[in-house]
C-alpha cells in the first residue's frame, strides 16, 4: 500500500494512551527511543515510560547557547531539537565493519552479523524526517548500499511529532523541510492539551492506530491542531535565502568572508557531529598485540579535522578557513550535484552547538553580499 491509498483521516489519542503506544511497540520487540532529559539538555535515549519524556520542559536556543527551562504547561513535546539526532542510531558513531583472524589456512575475513535491533523513534521532527531522507540517499541511494545503515533503517518505525513552536535557531521553512511533517513517517502526532491528533503515514502506522484506544477527532480539535502547527511557522525568525545558492557559493570561493569566518571557527567538528545529515567517517584497522587478529572499525569523522584531507603529499585543506569553506560549500552547494538535494535541513543544530555561535545563515548572507539579513539570511 502506498501513501496515496492511506486513509487521510486523523484520529484523537488521549494523553493517557501514549503509554499504551510505547507498550505496544515494546511488546512487538522494538526498542523505543525518544526525547528525555539528561546532562541539562533534551537528548534521545531509550525510553520505556512516558514519565521519561520531557513533559513540562522546553529548550531556549541561540547561537552557541542552549538552556533547559520549565514550561508553564504540561506539554510533552514542547521543545524543538537538541544536540542528538537519530543519526546516532542509524549511522552509529563507532561500528566494527569487518574482522580478520590469522589461522593455519591464512587470514580469515569476517563481516559481523548485522545489528538486529528494531528501533521505534518517538518524536521525530519534520526537519529530522528530511535529514533521514537525505541520509537515505547518501547511504542507500547509489550502487553501493551501506549495510549498517540500511539494516537499521529498514527496521525503524518512525513516530513523527509536528512542531508547535520554533526556536530562534530554526529555519526549516527556508529549507522547505518543515515545520509540518508531510512524509517519511509511520505515524505523525500533533500535540493538544489533552492528547494528540494522530495521522498514519504507512500501513504499519494504520495497523498500530487500530490497536490503540482512539476516537474520531472533532472539528475543534482539528482546528486547534492546525493552529498549533501554524504557530511553528509564524515563530520562525531565522531565514536563509537559497535562491541560486549552489552557483552563489561555488562562484565565491575567493570571497574574503571565508578568511573572516575561518578566524572565528575553532575547527572543533561540533557542527558536523550534531548535523543530522553529515555522514563522513574513517576506517582504521586495530591490530591485537599478538598480531593474530584485526578489527576494522568505522568511526564518525569530520572535514574539519586536519587528518581528514591528508593524502600522500600532505594535508589538502591546511587552514581552518579552507575547511569551513569545504563544509559549507559541500553542505549547501555540491551536495546538490552529488545527491540532488541540499545537505541542510534547517534544524539549526550547527548554530546552537557551535561553541562560538557561528551561524551559517549569516555566513551565506554575508557571501551573498546583502547587509539586510532579514531578506537574505540570519535572524529577522
Amino acid at each position, binding site marked *: 500500500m502506498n501513501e496515496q491509498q492511506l486513509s487521510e483521516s486523523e484520529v484523537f489519542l488521549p494523553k493517557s494512551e501514549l503509554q499504551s503506544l510505547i507498550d505496544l511497540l515494546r511488546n512487538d520487540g522494538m526498542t523505543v527511543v525518544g526525547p528525555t532529559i*539528561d*546532562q*541539562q*539538555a533534551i*537528548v534521545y535515549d531509550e525510553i520505556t515510560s512516558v514519565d521519561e519524556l520531557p513533559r513540562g520542559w522546553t529548550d531556549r536556543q541561540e547561537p*552557541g*547557547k*542552549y*538552556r*533547559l527551562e520549565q514550561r508553564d504547561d504540561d506539554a510533552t513535546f514542547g521543545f524543538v531539537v*537538541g*544536540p*542528538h539526532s537519530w543519526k*546516532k542510531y542509524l549511522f552509529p*558513531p*563507532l561500528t566494527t565493519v569487518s574482522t580478520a583472524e590469522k589461522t593455519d589456512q591464512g587470514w580469515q575475513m569476517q563481516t559481523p552479523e548485522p545489528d538486529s535491533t528494531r528501533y521505534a523513534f518517538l518524536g521525530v521532527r519534520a526537519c529530522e524526517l528530511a535529514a533521514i531522507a537525505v541520509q537515505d540517499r547518501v547511504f542507500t541511494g547509489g550502487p553501493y548500499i551501506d549495510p549498517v545503515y540500511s539494516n537499521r533503517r529498514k527496521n525503524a518505525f518512525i513516530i513523527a511529532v509536528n512542531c508547535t513552536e520554533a526556536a530562534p535557531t530554526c529555519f526549516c521553512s527556508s529549507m522547505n523541510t518543515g515545520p509540518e511533517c508531510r512524509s517519511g513517517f509511520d505515524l505523525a502526532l500533533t500535540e493538544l492539551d489533552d492528547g494528540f491528533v494522530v495521522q498514519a503515514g504507512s500501513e504499519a502506522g494504520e495497523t498500530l492506530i487500530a490497536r490503540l484506544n482512539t476516537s474520531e477527532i472533532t472539528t475543534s480539535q482539528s482546528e486547534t491542531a492546525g493552529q498549533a502547527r501554524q504557530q511553528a511557522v509564524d515563530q520562525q525568525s531565522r531565514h536563509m535565502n537559497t535562491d541560486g545558492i549552489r552557483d552563489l557559493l561555488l562562484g565565491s570561493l575567493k570571497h574574503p568572508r571565508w578568511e573572516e569566518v575561518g*578566524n*572565528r*571557527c*575553532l*575547527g*572543533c*567538528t*561540533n557542527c558536523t*557531529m*550534531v548535523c543530522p545529515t553529515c555522514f563522513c567517517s574513517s576506517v*582504521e584497522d*586495530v*591490530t591485537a*598485540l*599478538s*598480531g593474530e587478529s584485526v578489527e576494522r572499525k568505522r*568511526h*564518525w569523522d*569530520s572535514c574539519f*579535522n*586536519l*587528518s581528514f584531507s591528508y593524502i600522500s603529499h600532505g594535508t589538502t585543506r591546511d*587552514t*581552518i578557513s579552507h575547511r569551513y569553506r569545504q563544509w559549507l560549500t559541500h553542505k549547501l552547494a555540491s551536495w546538490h550535484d552529488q545527491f540532488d538535494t541540499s545537505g541542510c535541513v534547517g534544524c539549526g543544530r550547527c548554530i*546552537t*552547538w557551535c*561553541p*562560538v*555561535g557561528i551561524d551559517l545563515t549569516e555566513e551565506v548572507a554575508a557571501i551573498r553580499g546583502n547587509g539586510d539579513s532579514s531578506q537574505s539570511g540570519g535572524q529577522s
Partner: protein
Amino acid sequence: MSNAARKPKLGVFKFASCDGCQLSLLDAEDQLLDVVGLVDIAYFLEATSKIGSGPYDVALVEGSITTPHDEERIQEIRQQSKFLMTIGACATAGGIQALRNWADKDEFVRAVYASPEYISSLETSTAIADHVTVDFELRGCPINQYQLIEVIQALVGGHKPRTRTHCVCMDCKQRGNVCITVATGEPCLGPLTQSGCGAICPTYDRGCYGCYGPAKQIHAQSLTDHLIRQGSAPPQLVPLLRNFNSNAEPFRNESNRIESMT
C-alpha cells in the same frame, strides 16, 4: 624498526615529573607481558633495577627540563637513542611545574626546602623538544596507556601509530555528551585540546582541563573572546589555560593575552 631478528632496545628515562606516565606502562596489566615481549627493556628504573647500557633503539622520555643537570643528561640520552619519544605533558610542554615560568623560582625554593642552598635548578621548566630533537610526542597528563602500547606496537611493526589528533569535542559528541559550554556556560578547553583521554572530564560534567595540550591550528582567542562575551571573567580563564600544558605555545600565548586584559 621492523627488524624481526632483534627486538628493539628500549630505555625509559625520567626528568621532572610525577612518574605517572611511566606507571601507565606498568599499569597495562593484561597487555604488559605482550608489550614486554615486543621489546628488550634495557633501562627502566621504575620497573627494574637491572640496568643495561645504551645505545637505545627507542627512548621514552618522561618529565621536563628543570635543572642544569637535566640539560646535560637529555643531550646524552639523545645521542644514545635512535628514536626519542616524549611521554606526557611534562615532557611535551613543561608540565604543571612550568607555572614557575610566571613566578619567582627562588621564592618557591625557599618555601619548600629547608636548605635551599643545596638546590640547583633553572628559572624555567621546559619541554624536551626545547632542548633536543624529538621524534614523536605522546600527549596527556597522564598519557593514555592504550596510545602508548599502540605507539610501541607501531614502532616494532613498522607502521604509523593510530594516535588521532582531533580535538576533545569529537570524542564528546561520539559518546553522546552534551556540550557543557553551550548547555551551561561553563568554560571548557575541549575545542582547543587534542584528543586522547576519550573526553573523561566532560563525561563527568566537568569542563576539559586541556591535559592533552593544544590541538593543531587552534583559534584560542576566538573561544576565549566568546567565553568572555558570555560572562566568563578573564581571571577565571587564565588558570584554565595554565594547567598541565601552560607552557605549550598556544596556551601560553593566550593566557598571557588574557592576563594583560585584566
